[in-house]
């Protein structure tokens, strides 16, 4: 047990919320409802990041996934005709329930066996250090408890991982240009000439 106090309570609430929302994503009949549950899953994960003191990652998660990707998802879903599914003329569960359950159990088991040695290696922290830490953070006041999280991400990204970062950005650029090229036919090109 590594978590204690308020952090533990918050972690379990958020983790359970995340799992339930993820299940609702799959079981919702209306596609827009699925998207909404996916959004709440993503927000919950962002809150978990904040609990891990990774504020920058949490902010970017909300900015990119909730504010960007999910809005585009909703754009597409809103314009697609999904009436057949909404009026339950389509079966949501096909005959793959049992294989899915078995695979999920196998996955859970493998996670457990992979994590248990790591779990044993952790020392349960003393309650006293945690209290001292909280008190220290509280007494440091509003101005001084700024963590170096953003700087660290920047250093890692632009110094240690500069090459993969550039490759990824190039890949995204190529995808973007390709999408524009596919969307823009020769007819439009002629019109703009």
């Amino acid at each position, binding site marked *: 047990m590594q978590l204690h106090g308020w952090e533990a309570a918050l972690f379990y609430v958020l983790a359970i919320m995340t799992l339930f929302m993820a299940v609702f994503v799959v079981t919702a009949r*209306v596609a*827009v*409802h699925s998207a*909404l549950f996916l*959004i709440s899953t993503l927000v919950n994960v962002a809150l978990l990041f904040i609990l891990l003191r990774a*504020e*920058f990652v*949490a*902010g*970017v998660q*909300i*900015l990119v996934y*909730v*504010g*960007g990707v*999910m*809005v*585009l998802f*909703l*754009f597409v879903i*809103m314009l697609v005709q999904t009436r057949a599914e909404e009026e339950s003329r389509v079966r949501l569960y096909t005959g793959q329930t049992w294989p899915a359950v078995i695979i999920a159990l196998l996955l859970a088991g493998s996670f457990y066996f992979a994590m248990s040695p790591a779990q044993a290696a952790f020392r349960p922290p003393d309650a006293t250090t945690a209290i001292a830490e*909280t*008190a220290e953070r*509280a*007494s440091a*006041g*509003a*101005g001084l408890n*700024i*963590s170096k*999280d*953003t700087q660290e991400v920047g250093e890692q990204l632009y110094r240690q991982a500069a090459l993969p970062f550039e490759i990824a950005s190039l890949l995204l650029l190529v995808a973007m240009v390709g999408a524009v090229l596919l969307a823009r036919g020769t007819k439009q090109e002629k019109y*703009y000439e």
Partner: protein
Amino acid sequence: MQALLTTLLFVAPGWVRDWITHEKQPNVFWSEYIVWPLIQIVIVVIVVLTLVAYLTYLERKVSALIQARLGPMRVGPWGLLQPLADGIKLLIKEDIVPIKADRAVFLVAPIISLVAAMVVLAVIPWGAAWATIANVNIGLLFILAVSSVGVLGLVLAGWSSNSKYSLLGALRSSAQMVSYEIGMGLSIIGALMFARTLSMSGIIDAQQTDSLWGLGYFLYQPLGVLVYLTSALGETNRAPFDLPEAESELVAGYHTEYSGFRWALFFMAEYSSMIVTAAVAVTVFFGGWYFPGLGLVKNPTLFVLLSIVIFGAKIAVLLYAYMWFRWTWPRYRYDQLMELGWKWMIPAGLANIVLTGVFYVLALPKAQGGLLGFMHEEKGRLIPTKLGILYFIVTGFVVTIPIVWGLLTTINRRSRDFNLHEQRQLQVNLRRERLEKMLQQGAGTQPAEGGQ
């Protein structure tokens, strides 16, 4: 007076905390993180909601003055109670939910909009010291992230109404907000290079040491200010970019099917996001709660109160400018709006980042590899010298703006003109050329495109 204030602000939270927790020993955590922030939140929410109500009044008054009318005059002296009357009217109106609407989403959508606009108020530095609710180290990123969630409210409102006017209105407004968000994010980065922090209070502190008399980064970042203010107008759906609800041409856009107080929630979200964008502009570019000469005030309580007044005054100037723009400029056409966003604002933001970065690296101290050495290190921060301040102002105004202007006109030389007359001229000329070419090829072949 001061004793009363001190009691109210510093001792009273302790009583509340003792009453809630029944703990006799001083517990810093409760007063610092629970009780005091709650008091601040209540004050800020009440003040901002009142301000939102009176912004509608102010908008009507400003528009009336610009059009040489009187505006609301009947309810109370000079119509000052008009927002209250409007609020009561909206509260007692019937709350209509269309039968074919997706009920749950329809009810949630305005709440998402308003919450996204109001949560952000927590990290805005309303003043020095205790006037800031939360000094989060990702303050600016938090604001950008949470206000981007506000788009969801519009999209869902449009979809759940199950009406084609709402859906089309939602598509229009969300496309607009998503595009202008990018320009807004890019325009801030130049100022962040100077501040080297995302914390809102940190940015204000940095401006006091970095900029001329602590006036703000708008002296170093004129292009950034321009792009930010334009994008903020687009992001908050204000005129001249108010296409989502263009009153004179559309059926109200995404909130067509909303009535009564649910409609008012959208309205409140729009106005409070106006306040938020103005507050971010003030924080990042105009020196926040600081003004030259504020340092002379030695009394800490007076200092904080004055800082709040300065911050409010700066926001008020920007809000007045918003209203002024709305009633003096005509509305953009949709393609012009998108063109301005994607072909002018975003490239300008990107070019601003590159140029600011180059000038910043050139001005680094010589020990850190800079060529000009216009900066010196002090308490772990890089601070420009007197010559450095002049250098950054000159590069901002005299070098960056002409370079970016030339770059953008080169990029956009083939795009259609904003001027409708010129644009028509362009098409006429193209058609004439094509006809002449056909005539030269031979009179035997008739031009087949008569209807075009």
